[in-house]
């Protein structure tokens, strides 16, 4: 057909919203776009270790249906024809959902997570599954049964974790968005490491049904994409109460329209986030960015978050405690891999020990310990109290300012293998991100340039409970000042 000769794919860095315009203008079809995107997943996506599964057939079918809808003038969805991937811990009808663990090897959930079905209903097309740390436990994507993921900006470095696959894809190509999950920074930290934009929504704003649980009271599904406008669009599709998740809530008052007339004005720069433990160039960059926001009319003040120093300890206790219980279901009896055993006890211990990787076993052990008789009050009980203090402090500090500003990670993307064998070095990645999870508030990571070696740098804003849209509005405004989000790594095709 003559249309094929005029085929004009959008530029590789194009955002989802730009691609939507492109498709609406008839410059290319969803099928053409998807074919090209699937090729990218099959080549670069697989080379980076980011794409674990690619659903060529079902995705192309969906793309053709999408094209038919556009052609016939049927209702088109908010993400009509836009490809997306889901992290390996998010259930999809297509493929497997193994949370990158060998204990769930081959697990077919048979149903879409609520977020996935909402996206499909709005025309988005599931193109594949992205790699992650085993059960989302990690900050470097080195604990996956599917192998390590490489940072698209420097292949000997980690992409961050646990949503490392999603971030590597979002950081190296436009057109699509990627669902990740964030328990202690698992969306924001890899987004920062890969030059993507990633949102951890308010806890409860997005249904967790279909997400393989790690630390249920901290877990939240969220989008990773090129820019805040794309993230906003995805949030608008996936958010809202779900009758299959009793902890999900509708945040109806916080909309793009409502925040347009009441945007963020006062930003609190968290002084503890710029302490000694954070790399000098990251501190510098955050201060510079704060100045730029100041020149753009924002009021930036320094604020103190005294609980920040204890947040990581608190997080390690609560996340592992909940994980030790959430992962008890992988027992070799009802689900998952089973080792041959003569008795039930051998079956339990054998299946769990061979099915879980080292880091997961370590966290289960710690979580079991902090809940066990004689220690629960000193560890889990204390952690709950500290958590309450953190929530209270965040609440109080955010009465005075509209958003809190901090780095995402205290250091730049590190080399593959550098930290994975030292749990403390790995847990240090989380110190600036866990507070948002513990407090249940929204937090977003956005690119703010690159360091001298060309690696992306990110900054983080936290907002009030339920005010995700206000954060996104701030992020969009930032991204109109600073176009570093637009940059793609060179050499990536």
């Amino acid at each position, binding site marked *: 057909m003559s249309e094929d000769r005029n085929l004009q794919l959008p530029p590789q860095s194009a955002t989802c919203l730009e691609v939507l315009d492109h498709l609406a203008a008839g410059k290319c079809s969803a099928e053409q776009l998807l074919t090209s995107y699937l090729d990218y997943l099959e080549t670069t996506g697989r080379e980076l270790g980011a794409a674990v599964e690619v659903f060529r057939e079902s995705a192309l079918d969906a793309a053709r249906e999408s094209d038919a809808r556009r052609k016939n003038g049927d209702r088109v969805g908010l993400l009509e024809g836009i490809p997306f991937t889901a992290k390996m811990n998010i259930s999809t009808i297509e493929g497997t959902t193994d949370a990158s663990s060998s204990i769930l090897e081959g697990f077919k*959930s048979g149903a879409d997570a609520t977020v996935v079905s909402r996206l499909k209903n709005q025309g988005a097309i599931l193109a594949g599954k992205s790699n992650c740390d085993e059960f989302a436990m990690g900050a470097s994507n080195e604990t996956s049964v599917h192998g390590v993921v490489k940072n698209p900006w420097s292949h000997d470095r980690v992409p961050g974790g646990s949503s490392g696959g999603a971030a590597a894809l979002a950081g190296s190509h436009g057109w699509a968005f990627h669902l990740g999950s964030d328990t202690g920074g698992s969306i924001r930290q890899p987004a920062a490491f890969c030059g993507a934009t990633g949102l951890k929504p308010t806890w409860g704003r997005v249904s967790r*049904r279909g997400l393989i*649980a790690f630390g249920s*009271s901290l877990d939240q599904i969220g989008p990773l994409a090129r820019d805040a406008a794309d993230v906003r669009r995805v949030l608008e599709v996936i958010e809202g109460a779900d009758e299959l998740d009793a*902890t999900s809530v509708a945040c109806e008052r916080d909309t793009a329209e409502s925040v347009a007339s009441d945007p963020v004005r006062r930003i609190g720069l968290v002084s503890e986030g710029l302490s000694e433990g954070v790399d000098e160039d990251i501190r510098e960059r955050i201060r510079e960015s704060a100045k730029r926001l100041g020149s753009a009319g924002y009021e930036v003040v320094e604020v103190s978050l005294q609980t920040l120093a204890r947040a990581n300890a608190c997080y390690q206790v609560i996340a592992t405690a909940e994980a030790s219980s959430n*992962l*008890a279901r992988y*027992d070799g009896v009802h689900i998952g891999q089973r080792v041959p055993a003569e008795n039930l006890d051998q079956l339990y211990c054998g299946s769990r020990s061979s099915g879980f990787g080292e880091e997961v076993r370590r966290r289960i052990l710690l979580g079991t310990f902090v809940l*066990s008789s004689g220690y629960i009050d000193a560890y889990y009980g204390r952690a709950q109290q500290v958590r309450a203090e953190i929530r209270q402090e965040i609440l109080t500090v955010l009465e005075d300012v509209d958003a809190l500003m901090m780095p995402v990670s205290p250091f730049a993307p590190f080399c593959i293998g550098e930290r994975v064998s030292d749990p403390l070095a790995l847990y240090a990645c989380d110190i600036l991100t866990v507070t948002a999870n513990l407090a249940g508030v929204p937090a977003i990571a956005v690119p703010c340039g690159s360091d001298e070696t060309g690696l992306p740098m990110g900054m983080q804003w936290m907002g009030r409970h339920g005010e995700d849209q206000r954060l996104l509005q701030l992020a969009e405004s930032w991204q109109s000042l600073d176009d570093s989000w637009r940059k793609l790594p060179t050499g990536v095709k």
Partner: protein
Amino acid sequence: MAKIADGGEVMNWITVVGLEIHAQMATQTKMFCACRREAGAEANLHICPVCVGWPGALPVLQSEAVRCAIRAALCLGCEIQELSRFDRKNYFYPDLPKGYQISQFYKPYALGGGIPFIRDDQSAATLPLVRIHMEEDAGKSSHESDGTSRIDLNRCSSPLLEIVTEPMMMSSTEAASCVRSVRNLLRWVDVCDGDMEKGNLRCDVNVSVMPEGAKEYGTRTELKNLNSFVSIERSIVVESARQIELLAAGGTIRQETRLWDQDKEITESMRGKEDSPDYRYFPEPDLPAISISNAEIQTQRESLPEMPEVRELRWLEEYKFQEREIVPLMARRANGDFLESMVSEGVAPTDASNWFRGEILRYLNERSEKIESFPVSTKSMARLILATKEDLFSVGRAKSLLQEALEAESSLDHLIDQAGSQVQDEGELAGWVDQVLSENPEAVTKIQAGDEKPMGFLMGQVMRLSSGQAHPRKVQELIKDRLAN
């Protein structure tokens, strides 16, 4: 109270019992998912990702279970907590697919209250409750001859109430009477089917003994696997005897969990306190806290049926029922409800009671059925009984009409209509009677000589002559009248 000779002195021992009663709530679906709650279904018919503990599935509490729980707490006099929470009880077992049971540990929904029961000496007493909490049931495992076990998760995640009592000095029969009292109350308010054989009511018993006059309770053991009232009674007798014997011989009691073996009539050690599982309770992060409003409590209070003691008193005073006749009527709330419904249709309470205990109960007992499946409505029953009062036909006729309706499964109303249209006109009746009397002089002579036997024969002849249209009692009166003259 057991007496054991101790160094020549006779020592009296007192048994102290505490109960943990598990009652499955009579809801349509399971506690946290939309699977049907059905006993006896084909294995694993009613399972879904939530109750099988699939990754990604989340529990969602259902409202009817909360309402049942509120009703149970109200009829046991508990204080319902404004805020309560679910916690996870962590342990590994094949019938527990999540590796934890969703229960309430730190903040149960109901505190206090008590179980009313009758002491062996017929005095009324109350066994105080510590708490009631909601939790989900586990599945079942069965053992195969090939050395494997099969796991059926149909029961898994069915809604349960756990009713925990204080320990109290009581006999084995009194303990069983407490469980029976709970069973009756929960049945009465439609919370639990209360069938121990089917396992929807289960009980663990804590037993300790102490010498009479002692200030502190002895070390207790927990008995499991009690699936009938008989096993509750017998196990307490056997276990307290074991403890007394041990103590009298100078031994000590080990705090432990013991299993009741019904066939051997012994209790056997299952695990000691030191081996008791470390359940690592912590708040269930997948479920919001439960807040039960005063309005909801009020709604449930108003929806509660008249409680048994109130009904009993009213029947004694207002209906002038005898204690004895009340027993079968009170056995199930639906029995009394049926009776009340007949009364509200205008039947005198005494008639309603007589008919219920007679015709209706006989029918139900013969078929082992419950009143809910009685095929005749209270309205039709009332019509039948009232018809006898209005002399439309005799009580005997009414009974045979009911019999006919039940056997032939035909409409009682239709039969009443037919029977009610019997000829009562004196002139017409007199014609048939006179004809029969003149055709049967022998019978007439016998009756006049004082032999009443042929009366039935003459009646039958009149009925035949009238093709069943004649009103039997009128006919009888007429024959008597004619022969007396």
